[in-house]
């Protein structure tokens, strides 16, 4: 299913885009999103394990189903303040 996500900070820079569309099964979780992201953008590999995933304005849990969603965001550890 078409799955849309926003990218931020170094993840956006490494991918070279602020938004991305991936094809994922509806049952896909964060782990599968990570794998798909690494295949789509090999430059993300060093960051992959630390990437965080949000659904809407909440952090996704490991079991959150994210396939087909269009309100995802993917970003590295935060450093505000």
């Amino acid at each position, binding site marked *: 299913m078409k799955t849309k996500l926003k990218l931020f900070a*170094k993840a956006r820079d490494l991918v070279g885009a602020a938004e991305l569309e991936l094809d994922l099964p509806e049952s896909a979780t964060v782990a599968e999103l990570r794998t798909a992201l690494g295949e789509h953008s090999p430059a993300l590999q060093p960051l992959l394990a630390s990437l965080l995933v949000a659904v809407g*304005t909440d952090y996704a849990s490991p079991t959150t189903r994210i396939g087909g969603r269009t309100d995802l965001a993917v970003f590295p*550890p935060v450093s505000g303040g």
Partner: protein
Amino acid sequence: MIQLTHNPIDFTLLTESVRSNQAGAVVLFLGTVREMTEGRQTVALDYDGFPEMAEAKLRELEAEARSRWPVIEAGIVHRLGHLELGDISVAVAVSCPHRHQAFDAGRYLIDRLKEVVPIWKKENWSDGSTEWVHPGAEPVKSQI
């Protein structure tokens, strides 16, 4: 007052917004752009954020603080964009009946902000290089 802004932070306004006759204590925290970090010299910082989620998380943090301390008023403003040395990147203000409550709540808010609010800073080092700060992530210097 929960706000993300590209403009300089008016900490006077924020502080005034939390003052109350019910409060005996106000604590204001300002994060400012420091020149030296572990021996390296910063010339500027760029802050990126995911505004909708950042504002939602800031509201959650305020609610968490209110559930733990008798907070009268609280406000958090975070700046985004390009900041020079000494500029204020974040301001947290909180008022409580007693001072230790206000210190604890203020510290909690800035500690949690740094853990969960989707905002990122990019160092502009004095050697001309830039580097996203992503605590715990493998360091990969980027030249942008």
